[in-house]
């Protein structure tokens, strides 16, 4: 299933947040969205997943989502959004209960997604016992449990320290290499974008519109830290954004 954004604009009262976004998210690819702070990238992600309605324009699903997909558009949040009163497995079963999945089938799915994210030993743990990286792994396995057609990732690694971030990036690349998934990945971190993105959408500052789409043809599994080509792409992206990031930093907030 592909996603297509057709001339999407969005405003909150008087503030224009996004302007005429046209974008195709092809199946099996990771599309990264980067931009200076406050450019509306997280808003764009909420629009894509139907958590907010765009003021103008349409968001289209092209093609049927796979039949086994319980929740085609599934988010992974920056703050993990785990229920603190449920254990790791409880957090995963939460999203299955409403889809009428019961009994041994739930067991199979939970065991499978925990194995894929190396969490099998933490099945009974409560979120408060887990480190930030582990919490995000739980959130990722919860997302995998509903077999999403598109994973909408909202700065999933931004709340983590840089070492954990490296580890989780490797995990994500492994996951994708074993079984390619479609993803929209919002981040402000350029090195994440060049490591994980098949294409990188650069948004301008508010009102956000697409400045450029940068493709990175290097296969994900071959991207290593310190790769010259990636370094150059990252440098190029930074030059694109630098002035706007500086300007965005100077802006007074409306709130």
């Amino acid at each position, binding site marked *: 299933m592909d996603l297509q954004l057709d001339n999407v604009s969005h405003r909150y009262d008087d503030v224009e947040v996004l302007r005429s976004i046209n974008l195709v998210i092809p199946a099996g690819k990771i599309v990264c969205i980067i931009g200076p702070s406050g450019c509306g990238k997280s808003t764009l992600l909420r629009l894509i*997943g139907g*958590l907010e309605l765009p003021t103008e324009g349409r968001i289209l699903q092209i093609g049927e989502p796979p039949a086994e997909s319980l*929740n085609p*558009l*599934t*988010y992974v*949040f920056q*703050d993990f*959004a785990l*229920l*603190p*009163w*449920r254990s790791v497995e409880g957090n995963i079963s*939460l*999203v299955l*209960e*409403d889809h009428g999945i019961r009994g041994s089938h739930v067991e199979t799915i939970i065991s499978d997604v925990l194995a894929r994210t190396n969490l099998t030993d933490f099945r009974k743990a*409560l*979120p*408060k016992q887990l480190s930030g990286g582990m919490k995000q792994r739980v959130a990722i396995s919860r997302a995998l449990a*509903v077999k999403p057609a598109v994973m909408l990732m909202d700065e999933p690694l931004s709340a983590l320290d840089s070492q954990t971030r490296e580890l989780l990036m490797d995990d994500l690349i492994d996951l994708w290499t074993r079984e390619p998934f479609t993803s929209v990945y919002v981040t402000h971190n350029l090195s994440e974008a060049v490591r994980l993105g098949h294409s990188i959408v650069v948004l301008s500052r508010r009102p956000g519109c697409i400045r450029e789409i940068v493709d990175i043809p290097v296969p994900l599994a071959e991207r290593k830290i310190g790769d010259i080509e990636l370094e150059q792409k990252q440098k190029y992206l930074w030059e694109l954004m630098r002035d706007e990031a500086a300007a965005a930093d100077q802006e007074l907030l409306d709130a």
Partner: protein
Amino acid sequence: MPDSEKPDLQMQVAFRGGGFAPQSKRWIGLIVFVVLIALIEIGARLGFISNLTLPRPSDVFYTFVELWNTGLLWKHLLPSLSRLAVGATIGASLGIAVGVMIGLFSYVRAGLVPIVAAIFPIPKIALLPLFVIWFGIEEQSKYALIAFGTFTPTVVATYGAVDNVDRSLIRMGQSFSLSWFSIVTKIVLPGSMPGILSGLRVSLAIAIILLVAAEMLGAEYGVGAYILEAGSLYDLERLFVGVAILSILGVILSSVITFFETRVLDWRV
């Protein structure tokens, strides 16, 4: 230079990071209590404190033992406990239900919050005659008074607790297409439990206050009736026995809630 040849002065860096971290010291509360009672006892025996000011704690204790031995204790305590249980249960459960509704529905909020704000400050005791007319002089009017008194603080605590549920968790529920009912029962209600329980702490204390008020008017048996009778006879020993029973009741209820908090809310960081 001569300075550089002198050995450098060595001094340990002074620790200055202590305090400002409350710890639970278990027995201190009990010790303070015992010391206070002992001081009153000594003062009363030595004559610093006259019998008209405060009764001797030992006399109060003997009166309590007597009350126990004659079997009157349970005759007074059981009706009180049942009134408290029925009234507080009705008030708290209605309060939680209405509070959750206010937390969930904008129209209910707009309609009921002003009413709750209007009835919250009314001293419920003042309405006792009204309840007697509505529900009769028997048990029902006492239940109604206690229920009404527990209802308002529970409503306020509950809708505050619902408001404080982490919005990002609700957003998460929606993003996984959970049904409205699932979001309410699996996210909103468990998320508001801490606030509801701490509200119940206040509500139950109010329920005890109102229990006595209700029993002072037209009850043959009950801790309130016992206190009223002792007061009108100026029998300070019995008055203090009654007051002590209420205090103990309050402490027990509060520790029951603490027990629930530690058991049910062990997920809190």
